[in-house]
């Protein structure tokens, strides 16, 4: 009997976490970021990707889900029976070598080429700074060095801007060839999972396009919430809904709905 999953419809956050989990392939080395990705990794690990390995910037590598719900990657259950407890430079070294298949980051501002800003809204000079955000943390490293990275963010016009005010975490810069020109060794954003849909990047133009739309959301809503003329995939599919097994698992990892209640 599925007492946890039955009866209660999924929330938008649960759909987003599920979409994030599905970006993880079995056997992937995953650099796990803060908040929703913590759940995404636990979910993938417990469903379709049992052989995935999680790497955390604090210096943690683990190949099993944490035994209890966690709110942050530093929670002690996330250290219990870890594969490796080490230094930040050690796990960042794995990333820099090219050992990390996929990583997850969030952002306040994202542009059409997937550049991400989590530092300054407005300018960088005192008096011109409208909002100072927390900064990179490990996000710049993940965007620079992972084989691919996934961006998770709310889909709002003030966030989806033609050009970010500050590149904290590099995407495709100003388009094709930019990453190679500046010297980045690999990678780039593979997907942007938002509150409205999932966006991907054109292999030639490197521009973001709407690849799927969440059930109950209209294309118009997505276009209106994007600050440039957003291209839309032909025969636009719906983002797959979480299965009841996925939902039940998610609700075990976040029993109070701390991350996924809305």
């Amino acid at each position, binding site marked *: 009997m599925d007492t946890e999953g039955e009866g209660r419809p999924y929330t938008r956050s649960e759909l987003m976490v599920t979409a994030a989990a599905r970006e993880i392939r079995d056997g992937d080395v995953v650099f796990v970021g*803060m908040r929703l990705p913590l759940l995404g990794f636990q979910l993938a690990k417990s469903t379709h990707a049992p052989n995935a390995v999680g790497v*955390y*910037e*604090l*210096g*943690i590598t683990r190949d099993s889900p944490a035994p209890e719900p966690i*709110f*942050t*990657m*530093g*929670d*002690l259950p996330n*250290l*219990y*029976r870890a594969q490796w*407890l*080490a*230094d*930040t*430079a050690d796990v*960042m070294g794995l*990333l*820099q070598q090219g050992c990390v298949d996929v990583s997850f980051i969030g952002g306040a501002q994202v542009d059409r080429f997937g550049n991400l800003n989590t*530092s*300054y809204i407005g300018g*960088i000079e*005192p*008096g011109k*700074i*409208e*909002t*100072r*955000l*927390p*900064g*990179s*943390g*490990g*996000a*710049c*490293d993940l965007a*620079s*060095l992972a084989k691919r990275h996934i961006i998770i963010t709310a889909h709002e016009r003030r966030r989806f801007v033609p050009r970010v005010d*500050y*590149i*904290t*975490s*590099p995407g495709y*810069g100003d388009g094709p060839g*930019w*990453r190679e020109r*500046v*010297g*980045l*060794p690999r990678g780039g954003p593979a997907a942007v999972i938002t509150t409205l849909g999932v966006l991907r990047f054109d292999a030639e133009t490197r521009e973001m396009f709407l690849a799927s739309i969440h059930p109950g959301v209209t294309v118009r809503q997505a276009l209106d919430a994007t600050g440039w003329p957003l291209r839309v995939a032909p025969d636009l599919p719906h983002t797959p809904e979480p299965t009841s097994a996925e939902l039940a698992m998610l609700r075990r990892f976040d029993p109070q709905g701390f991350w996924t209640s809305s």
Partner: protein
Amino acid sequence: MATSKLTSLAEAVSRFVPDGSLVVMGTALESLIPFAAGHEIIRQRKRGLTLIGPISDILFDQLIGAGCVHSVRAAWVGNVITGSGYNFRRAVETGAVDVEDHSNLTLALALRAGAMGVSFMPTRTALGSDLFKTNPSLKTIVCPFTGDTLTAVAAIVPDVAIVHVQRADEFGNAHAWGNLGVTREACLASRRVIVTAEEIVAPEVIRSDPNRVFTPGFRVSAVAHAPWGAHPSPVPGHYNRDHQAFLDYQQDSQTPEAFTAWQARWIEAAHHRDDYLALLGDRRMAELRLKQHALAEAVDYGY
């Protein structure tokens, strides 16, 4: 005979954290954050500090709010579970505090360069990013061997590293375990090290397991006994993260007035860490203590 370095936290901060110091803290990232030492810095009204650290959770935000800080060299300043650090935001937006924007990797490498006694370390991170515009410690260079473009990260040599760990002896030899972040680099790079510890133990305990020592005791300037000294951050082997404290702090720091009230209650009225723990209360401390122990197998260092 070696001289004891055991002292009170107040004395350690008073002697080894003069105004204007470059201080590295929060080196294990989300755990083992030296909150008791940070609060003592606020209590002693230190001024003009440069704070160095990867992500400090809310400790840097508290020191900034209390007016102790001139500049920050960090990858991230905020509240891990809720997002923004409001004192940090206000201080940067008004120009009261300067920021050198790092990533976790560039900050780790800046300290590693300091620890290695070289002027910079190369990396492939951050190329093409705007970190270069707000961090004069980052420059691009051409690798003399491959011709690749690389990021050079200038060394950081802090005046003092303040670390909180599980156990130390009175001579500055100490054990830390769990994820250690940039703790090793930070201690080796710094001119002085202050260790605060959950437990002060006999030197034989530390000597029995030298692999767990994160920096040699001869580099340590002071050792202070500080039970619950990392609260509300977690300490492996001792207590869990106090999530509620971080959630409450979001409200308590949203306005300057709210922060002043927080500071009055949790720092100014608490003249000593014992007062802070009394405010916290036995019941809450009991809830945070480990419920499930997990001891490692002993290892043999014999010959």
